[in-house]
């Protein structure tokens, strides 16, 4: 299925979900709509597959996160209560889609490179394995806007790494590279520049040797989905979003001419 932002195909029992929205796969309403289309057919795709790979075709990276320009335009055009309603609705929809992929019985692999920030990191965290090339940088820069990650990032990161690492990422907003990400247990394999997808495909081929039911059972046992915390994250995000500082932060970011606007 070929769409404008997110496309997919099944090849040799592996679903490949491609992100290809310029400039850096920012996640906005178009991406969400197409992600929902993918999730709607996932039951059918899963019947003929044993693995799912999510990767980006954009040279800049896996995904730069939420589409802040769209978020700012949408929210500044509305009164606060309506803007909040819109943001909550958007978050609930993206959580539904990501929770569905998280709960997939298939083994899922994020093949990442370059910028993997905010919502991009949250999308990667949905997957069972992250394979990163050496150009990858991970960050949760949301605090610079007066927000926390809203697509399930913190509950899912808590599932995978220690609390001190999360505090470092979240409270400093700094980015770190693939080698560091592997040291802390976030990334399973680090490969040379441009080699992540090939490695993900080789890993997916290996997974085909295992019994599907056993693999799915093992995954359910070891990877619980933190539904309560995910719901709480939406509440906290919406509370923070209603503060004037957030509107100012969003406006400042989208109008920035700074060479390093991602810096907190």
């Amino acid at each position, binding site marked *: 299925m070929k769409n404008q932002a997110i496309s997919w195909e099944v090849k040799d029992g592996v679903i490949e979900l491609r992100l290809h929205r310029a400039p850096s796969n920012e996640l906005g309403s178009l991406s969400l709509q197409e992600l929902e289309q993918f999730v709607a057919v996932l039951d059918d795709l899963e019947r003929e597959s044993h693995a799912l790979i999510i990767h980006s075709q954009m040279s800049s990276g896996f995904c730069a996160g939420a589409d802040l320009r769209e978020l700012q335009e949408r929210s500044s055009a509305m009164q606060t209560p309506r803007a909040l309603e819109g943001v909550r609705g958007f978050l609930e929809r993206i959580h539904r889609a990501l929770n569905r992929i998280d709960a997939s019985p298939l083994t899922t692999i994020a093949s990442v490179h370059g*910028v993997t920030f905010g919502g991009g990191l949250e999308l990667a965290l949905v997957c069972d394995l992250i394979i990163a090339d050496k150009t990858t940088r991970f960050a949760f820069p949301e605090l610079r806007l007066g927000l926390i990650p809203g697509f399930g990032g913190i509950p899912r990161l808590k599932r995978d790494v220690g609390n001190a690492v999360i505090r470092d990422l979240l409270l400093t907003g700094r980015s770190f590279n693939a080698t560091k990400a592997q040291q802390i247990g976030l990334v399973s394999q680090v490969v040379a520049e441009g080699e992540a997808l090939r490695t993900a495909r080789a890993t997916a081929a290996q997974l085909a040797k295992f019994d599907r039911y056993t693999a799915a059972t093992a995954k359910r046992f070891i990877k619980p989905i933190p539904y309560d915390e995910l719901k709480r994250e939406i509440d906290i995000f919406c509370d923070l979003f209603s503060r004037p500082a957030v509107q100012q932060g969003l406006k400042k970011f989208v109008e920035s001419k700074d*060479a390093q606007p991602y810096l907190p």
Partner: protein
Amino acid sequence: MPTAEQTLDEILNLAAAHFKVPREKLSPDDDFFKTLGIDSLQTLDLLTKLENHFRVELPDYELQGVNDFRTLASKIQVRL
């Protein structure tokens, strides 16, 4: 441990090779945003290259306001 001058020289060599700019066109006090013509994403790319090359971690907030190779070298030097 390399000297500060050696670190600076390595950064200039690395930047020249990565961004395909003749090495002789780069000077320690150049504004690298202007000389290399790089944007924020390419700056991140340079940061990753430097971290991998020198095997150090460089928190991006330490680089805020840094725009010349000499200051960049000093930030790396204290982490070697």
